[in-house]
């Protein structure tokens, strides 16, 4: 549905997006992940047709965003960051205006607007002025706008920014629902968010794509940095046994064990996924050999957060 190749975007001398290529298939929910200023918004704005690429090509549902911008924009429902809306309009009037603008046939307009309001959960404020709505509702009106013309692709820029935890949960559920009928691209700097909604992740940092893959793959790629073990008995012999294991660089006691001792064995840096698994095996074997019964083995780290820190740290290390 979306095909981006060698996309570069400059603002004057500053490079916001640097030679990025990726594909998004039909029905995927893709999370764009990166810290603030990484180039996420710029990329999404180019996909949505608001900005033009400095170099490279972007095709939306087969239409080039430069040569065939009109058709490309028709295929996309886009919600900009912070969902800017016309505050003086009522929700239902605003969505009817948007539906008309997006060429929803007159006969279907009212029904499609009602449907979008229902999906986004704004039916109860349909006749309120947008300026009087809370941030959460405004965000949802933005979402309703993105889906009102039933586009095959929905692009959401930071759909949960500025919402409270309850609203964030609701927004994520909404995005997951959207994934059933649309191809969804969303951006966020919160890692748990892509874990919660996306099937695939694109990590972007300083305008470059640093990693790409299924949410599980990305998590596996990286980043188990240690293993937590709950063992029977005293910490002394267990610690000694673990320190002797090849591939373990440190052992530290942890709080929170009702009985026995909880220890964290930290792995050496830059081990592959397979190597880390083997180190874990060796840890357990060493403990058993030392006569410490193992109650619990839990890999720690491994969240996207850790993937991200390790990936960007590697890059910083390589540069210096």
């Amino acid at each position: 549905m979306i095909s981006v190749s060698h996309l570069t975007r400059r603002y004057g001398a500053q490079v916001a997006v640097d030679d990025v290529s990726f594909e998004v298939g039909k029905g995927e929910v893709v999370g764009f992940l990166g810290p603030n200023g990484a180039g996420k918004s710029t990329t999404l704005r180019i996909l949505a047709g608001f900005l033009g690429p400095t170099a490279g090509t972007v095709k939306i549902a087969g239409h080039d965003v430069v040569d065939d911008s009109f058709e490309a924009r028709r295929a996309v429902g886009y919600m900009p960051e912070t969902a800017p809306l016309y505050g003086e309009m009522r929700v239902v009037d605003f969505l009817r205006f948007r539906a008309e603008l997006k060429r929803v046939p007159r006969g279907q307009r009212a029904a499609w607007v009602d449907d979008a309001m229902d999906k986004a959960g704004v039916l109860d404020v349909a006749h309120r002025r947008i300026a009087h709505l809370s941030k959460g509702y405004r965000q949802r009106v933005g979402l309703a706008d993105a889906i009102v013309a039933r586009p095959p692709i929905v692009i959401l820029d930071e759909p949960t920014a500025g919402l409270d935890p309850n609203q964030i949960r609701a927004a994520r559920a909404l995005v997951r629902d959207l994934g059933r009928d649309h191809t969804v691209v969303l951006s966020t700097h919160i890692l748990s968010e892509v874990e919660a909604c996306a099937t695939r992740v694109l990590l972007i940092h300083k305008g470059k794509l640093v990693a790409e893959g299924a949410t599980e793959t990305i998590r596996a790629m990286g980043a188990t940095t240690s293993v937590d073990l709950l063992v029977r008995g005293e910490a002394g012999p267990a610690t000694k046994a673990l320190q002797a294991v090849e591939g373990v660089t440190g052992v530290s006691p942890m709080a929170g064990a009702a009985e026995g001792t909880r220890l964290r064995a930290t792995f050496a840096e830059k081990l592959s996924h397979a190597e880390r698994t083997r180190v874990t095996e060796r840890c357990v074997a060493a403990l058993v050999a030392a006569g410490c019964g193992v109650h619990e083995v839990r890999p720690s780290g491994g969240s996207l957060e850790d993937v991200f820190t390790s990936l960007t740290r590697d890059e910083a290390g390589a540069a210096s």
Partner: protein
Amino acid sequence: MRAFWAIYKRELFTFFVTPLAWVLVVVFLVVQGMHFYLLVDHFSRPVDLSGDETPLSAFFGNTVLMYLVLFVLVPPMTMRLFAEERRSGTIEMLMTAPVSAASVVLSKYAAVLTTYVAMWAPTGLYLVILHRTGGLDAGAAASSYLGVLLVGAGYLSIGLCASALVRSQFLALVWTALVLLGLFILGVGEFVTREGTTMHALCAHVSVWAHMNDFASGVVDSRRLVFYGTLVALPLYVSTRAVEAWRWG
């Protein structure tokens, strides 16, 4: 065309839900009403019937009131057209819908021009009053309103262009006012430059004062039509290119 109507309707709606619009309409009609009252009062005295002046030609021509009103009216009408959307970010939603830059520019322009016409509409009552109480030259009345429409159309186009070129509403207001003032002053140059010089010809050509005098006395000169056609088309063209250029800026 669908995008054109959608934006046109929304612009009209937006203009009339803001208090600013009603303040402008009221100020405009109060000033025009007083102007008309003074003229009628003047012409109802039998002493001073000099030349071929009629209330109509005096209302539309030979008066600074008209420009003063337009000068105060046009910049606040046009300043928000694009600048406000860029400030609040709604321009991003607007331009990511399947709409062309030209249809956005033209629909906004059509909406503000409609508003302008609506503001002048109540002054049609003055014609009814003049017609009932004395003679009214229908041709001169028609050409006067044509003049009002042309001058307004040109000014509004300049205002829209300023709003598309700068980011802040206030700057759009200031730039529009400066350009309109500059045009007017250049026109006044007609009276201070020597006849026969290029400068004089130029000043006479752009003099809104002279144009309105012509229109008010029923003269429709094709040079004026071309001049105002240009004054409308050129800023609209520049605005369209500016809107297209935002994608690359």
